[in-house]
């Protein structure tokens, strides 16, 4: 099956509004919304499946490396900046709260567990969405409206293989690595605020981390980052790829709205899936 420019046309007639009695209108609206939502979920799943099928290949390697540079390497600065302050503020708040209970020695474990299990994967994903996800949607959206994707079809180049697969593969590789950077720098931020600035014993801070952080906490954090990588890359690529199918706008405006939708939807899905994954893992 190929997702082409008009591959969604078939579903349009299915969801066309039919006259209904006013009493049933709310039900009809809910029904249409749910069907449309399920339809989009299905299309996104097929889109992801087709992209994953093409991630491996001799010609894909260089494109994936290039995308790792754009999505991953170029996000490091912002990740470091956000993580250091997140760790510092987390250390500061935890220290004062735990001090009231005489448990300031546990601040290291609180900071590190918060970062490794929750804040690291979530904030990394949100920051990459803001920086690289929006750029991906805009880039693919412009390629769509300027017929560059149609041009790939006419050249017998699979656009999903050429444009989408490297981005999804790069996201899957970059997200856990950036999460690891976020966790490490965040813990260092916590060290700066509690040990360097507030005078907590450094050995206590590090010992608390060593005692309470276990390997499964780290693994769970990376599992989350992988889930977020797939969600963010798929949502952002999908929104750009089908920007021309939007019913609320056309052309450049459609690309703008697709970018907004991609960022908002990615952030919401990150938080929703965070809860789901946490429930499943605990």
């Amino acid at each position, binding site marked *: 099956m190929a997702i082409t420019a008009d591959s969604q046309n078939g579903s*349009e007639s299915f969801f066309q509004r039919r006259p209904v009695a006013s009493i049933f209108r709310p039900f009809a609206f809910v029904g249409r919304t749910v069907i449309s939502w399920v339809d989009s979920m299905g299309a996104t799943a097929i889109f992801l499946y087709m992209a994953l099928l093409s991630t491996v290949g001799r010609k894909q390697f260089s494109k994936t490396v290039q995308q790792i540079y754009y999505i991953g390497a170029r996000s490091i600065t912002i990740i470091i900046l956000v993580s250091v302050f997140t760790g510092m503020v987390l250390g500061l708040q935890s220290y004062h709260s735990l001090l009231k209970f005489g448990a300031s020695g546990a601040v290291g474990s609180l900071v590190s567990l918060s970062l490794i299990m929750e804040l690291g994967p979530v904030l990394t994903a949100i920051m990459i969405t803001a920086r690289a996800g929006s750029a991906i949607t805009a880039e693919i959206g412009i390629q769509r409206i300027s017929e560059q994707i149609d041009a790939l079809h006419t050249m017998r180049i699979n656009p999903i293989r050429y444009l989408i697969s490297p981005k999804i593969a790069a996201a899957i590789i970059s997200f856990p690595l950036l999460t690891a950077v976020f966790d490490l720098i965040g813990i260092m931020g916590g060290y700066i605020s509690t040990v360097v600035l507030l005078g907590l014993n450094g050995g206590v801070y590090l010992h608390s981390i060593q005692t309470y952080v276990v390997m499964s906490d780290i693994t769970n954090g990376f599992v989350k980052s992988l889930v977020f990588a797939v969600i963010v890359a798929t949502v952002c690529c999908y929104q750009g790829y089908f920007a021309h199918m939007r019913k609320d706008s056309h052309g450049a405006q459609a690309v703008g709205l697709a970018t907004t939708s991609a960022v908002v939807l990615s952030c919401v899905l990150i938080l929703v899936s965070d809860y789901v994954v946490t429930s499943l893992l605990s």
Partner: protein
Amino acid sequence: MDTPLIEFKNVTKRFGTKTVLDRINLQIYEGQITTIIGLSGSGKSVMLKHIIGLIQPDEGAIFFRGKPIAEMKKSEIAASFAQISFMFQGNALFDSLTVYDNIAMPLRETTNLKKAEIDRRVMARIEQTELTEAINKYPSELSGGMQKRAALARALITDPQIVLFDEPTTGQDPVRKNAILSMIAQYQKKFNFTAILVSHEIPDVYFISNRILALYDRRIVFQGTPEELENFDHPFMDEVISSLEALQKELTGLYSKRQFEMLNHLQLKRRKTGEAYCLVVFSLNELNAVITKIGHDAAQEALRNMGLYIDKHFGDIGGFSTRRNTNEIITMLPYSNLSETQSIMNNFIQDFHKQIIPASQEKACKLASGESVEMTIRAGIAEGQSTTDIDSVIALAKSQQKEIGRLSCATGGVHT
């Protein structure tokens, strides 16, 4: 005739509730340049996208070398489409890649050729399309004409047997338009591919086309040679005439030679055999000397004003004009006989002396900054019949020319 290369049978395409193509039937033959003409928004590009498989028909069937595409195996479809290249209306060049990378892309992605071989082929196409100086430039750094050439080079890099051109000359100036059309004709002969063009540049595309298909009101209303189209009696041709009337050449305010010939042919063929028409030839003598003294731009501006004035004066009575040579304007009056034309000319000369000569003279004298400038405007009338060769009528009109105005500046001031 042979089996068509591409055939549409009762193809219908709808977008929502809007029917764009309605039971289309057409045949495209191998080795020819086939042009699909139609007004803007008539569904020409949609038709072209059906051929390349970007859009599927809602009803009907498309045949490739006599075989329905819908019944082909996946590998057969891939093999068929591998013979086709597409040149998009907006070029669809990848703006983040250089010209070289854009042209090399189909070879890099769809073949296992070695880098050196890809380089050799790409460089050959770059040289053929005269893009050597733009090799490392990005599409946004190129002129419109160069972008078209880059898109053409990319379309030809895989040595396709069929090339589809979607509005290849849209948005180009007349010089570039001719260059692109000549380039298509030249490469079609050189590489022997089947060219399918979509265009509304009527009649410019006629001169390179072997076959014309006319799309009108969602259906194909004509299939045949350009000559056959000129004798085609259908409301579509009225639309063609009105579109030609809207396409007056910017430079002179007149029609291009091709537009004039087409309009002339269409107007005269509607007349009964033996009915007379009249033709006026205006000449501007010593134009080159004037250009030297007042400058090219100012001379062109004066010519344009004169062209617009002639067009306005004679256009009201059904006349239409073209610039034949640098200094000649021909006006066709398809519905006037000799005595009527002479009377119209007398009125024209009077108005011309009142409105055009004094203003042009004042401007020219200012630009000549005291130098002597002199130009005479001559006009001749001749009567012809729809069966008469137009060149002989033009020659007769030229032999009848008399001076109808003079623009003169003496050294140091205006001379009247």
